[in-house]
Every structure is written in C-alpha cells, then in structure tokens.
C-alpha cells in the first residue's frame, strides 16, 4: 500500500504530523502500537496542554485520535520491524508492507539500553520479531523478554509454531498464557559463542537458542542506521529535518521537554516540512 507520508508512532507528535499532512491534501499512514497502551494514556492529569487543563492522558489521546481519523489519516496497528530507505521508504509491520515517499519518525522515548550480549548476538540468536524469526527456532528453546503489552501474544505465537517458550519480565503480565513458563527477572544477560547458547536472568542461567527482545518499538537507529542522534535523541533542525533526506522527526524522540504540547507543535512542523519535501519532489 502506497502513501505520501508514513508516520512511525501514534502518539501526539505522530498524529499532529499526519493531520498537518492531511490538511495539505497528502495521504498519511500512522503506524504505531495501540494508543490505549501508551504511557501517556495512563497519565492521570495534564494541566499544561493549552486550552485543555485537567484532562487525563487518555482523554487527550482519544481526542487526538478522533481528530486524526476524521481528517482521513489511515492507521496500521503494530510495530515497525524493518525499514528500507530506497526509492522512498518501505516499512514492514508483521507480514504487511507499506510504502511512503516521506517518513516522519515519532516513536517517543522507549527504554532502549541494550542488554549485555544483545547487540553482539543480533541475528545470531537475538531477534526483535517473533513472526520474522520464530520459524527458524521450531522445536527449540527460546526466551521471550517481554517489555511491551503485546509480547505475551507473540510468545503464544512462538509456542503455537512449536518453539519451547519461556517468558521473562520484571512482572508477570496478566495476559500471559498459563501454559508458558514464566521467570521473573529484571536483569538479563545474553551469552553464547558463535551464537546464543543461554541467557542469564537475574543470575540464573537458562539454555536457549534464541532470545526475542520485545520492546514497544525498535530504536530509531536500528530501523534506520545512519540516522544522526545527539545525547540519545534524534537530531533535527528547526524544520524537524533529520540528516536523512525525506526523514523528519518530532516529539519526545527529539528531546526535552518531554511534553504533549511540544510534541504536537513539532509534529505539526514535521508534517508541513514533509509536505514541502514531497511538493519539491513533484516539481
């Protein structure tokens, strides 16, 4: 499916960018997790969003989403797993593929510090995508490090295709299927030689062939190597342009203050900049 603009992230920044693009007659697809699961949706009270004091995060997000839907923004719920910046931008979400001519990154801030061994063994027993790599581990022991609400579902999928799954997280999720063994752990260390052989969970070693590290989103620099960052945030100019042509960023991912008001403002600018970029391509 082809769109003018693909937006990665369904929070205030992403939605603002998409709405701005719609205002300029461009098609926009927002790819993101269920907004009800976002940290903002759990915020009890916001008093610094202009004109709407005292609202819950949930109420604000609901209003933002309704506006975006009414404006004709399209949505794909899920995590962007891979990105090809070639002849535009193509993104995969599970087994679906989406094509855009400009890209807005609005993933927010997700705790992305990699576990020991994670980077080293990526592709050799560490995976970020159960549907992508699960089939290679049928009949073998795998560990799911669940750090996102849909991780239990991915663990169930792995189990259904014949992987022997153990789920680990700091707290047992309610949605985790009872038949999947659970190990409560906060510290994770991935070990192996040529490939992963085991994972240490709070000091207890568990042999396994693959560790699926499932966070809410992939780090922007994992999705788009070469994306310039500064102090852990995506570097942008005042037009929200990143160092990659056709790629814009906005919201928490560009840095402080981590506030809805800033996210919406930057999202709007990013959307307009993306439209300007697209218009120049057409000229």
């Amino acid at each position: 499916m082809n769109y003018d603009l693909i937006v990665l992230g369904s929070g205030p920044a992403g939605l603002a960018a998409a709405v701005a693009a719609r205002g300029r007659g461009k098609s926009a697809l927002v790819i993101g997790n269920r907004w009800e699961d976002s940290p903002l949706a759990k915020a009890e009270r916001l008093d610094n969003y202009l004109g709407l004091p005292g609202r819950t995060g949930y109420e604000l997000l609901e209003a933002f989403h309704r506006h975006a839907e009414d404006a004709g923004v399209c949505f794909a719920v899920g995590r962007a797993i891979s990105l090809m910046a070639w002849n535009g931008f193509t993104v995969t979400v599970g087994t679906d593929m989406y094509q855009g001519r400009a890209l807005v990154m609005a993933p927010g801030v997700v705790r992305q510090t990699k576990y020991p061994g994670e980077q080293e063994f990526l592709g050799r027993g560490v995976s970020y995508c159960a549907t992508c790599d699960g089939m290679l581990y049928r009949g073998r022991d795998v560990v799911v490090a669940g750090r996102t609400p849909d991780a239990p579902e991915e663990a169930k999928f792995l189990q259904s295709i014949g992987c022997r799954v153990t789920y680990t997280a700091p707290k047992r999720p309610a949605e985790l299927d009872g038949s999947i063994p659970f190990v409560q752990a906060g510290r994770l260390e991935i070990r192996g030689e040529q490939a992963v052989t085991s994972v240490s969970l709070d000091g207890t070693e568990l042999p396994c062939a693959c560790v699926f590290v499932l966070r809410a989103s992939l780090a922007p620099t994992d999705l788009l190597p070469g994306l310039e960052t500064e102090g852990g945030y995506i570097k942008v100019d005042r037009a929200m342009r990143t160092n990659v042509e056709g790629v814009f960023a906005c919201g928490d991912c560009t840095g402080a203050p981590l506030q809805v008001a800033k996210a919406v403002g930057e999202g709007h600018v990013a959307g307009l900049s993306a439209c300007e970029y697209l218009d120049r391509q057409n000229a």
Partner: protein
Amino acid sequence: MALKHFDEMSFQEALAQPGLLIVDFWADWCGPCKLLGPVIEQLAMSYTGRAVVGKVNVDDEPELAQRYGIMSIPSVLFFKDGQEIDRKIGVMPPQEFIKVIDANI
C-alpha cells in the same frame, strides 16, 4: 541475468564456479525478506555477467540453511571462488551490498 532460485544441487554447482556468488536466504512468511527482494533483483541485473545472484528459500532447503548457520532472515551470503567471504543479516539498502561486491569483484 535473472535471479536464480537455488536448490541444494544448483547451489553446489554455483558454488563450484569461480567468481562472486551472492545468495539471499529468505522465506514466504518473512516480512523483511519481501523488503529486500527488489534490492536483490536489482543487484542481479546490475551485476549480470560479473556475479551470480540467487536466492534460497529456507523452508524448501532447511538443511542448506542450517549448514550455513542461518539464524535470522533475510541473510545474504557472499562467496568468492566457493569460499564465504561475508554475510549481511537483515534489511539494508543496496549500497551496503554493493560495497561488498565492488570490493571483491
């Protein structure tokens, strides 16, 4: 040159030839593999006569995939005169593959 779809036998034949061989290990159910598909096809066209470019479906050829330690797909393996010289795991734009090919052609 058209992209070759290798099975065990045709892969061994290609490996026995001198020169550069590039093999993309993929599967139907792999989303990122679909992203890489057009890139590999483009490489096959661009390097016609100078390198052999092909694909191996890991479901059709599980032993071949296992023998080469394929633990994540897409995995693109580079062979020169029958020896593996490099491998790239995951999705990346054409330039990354071109770098390896041009350095070894």
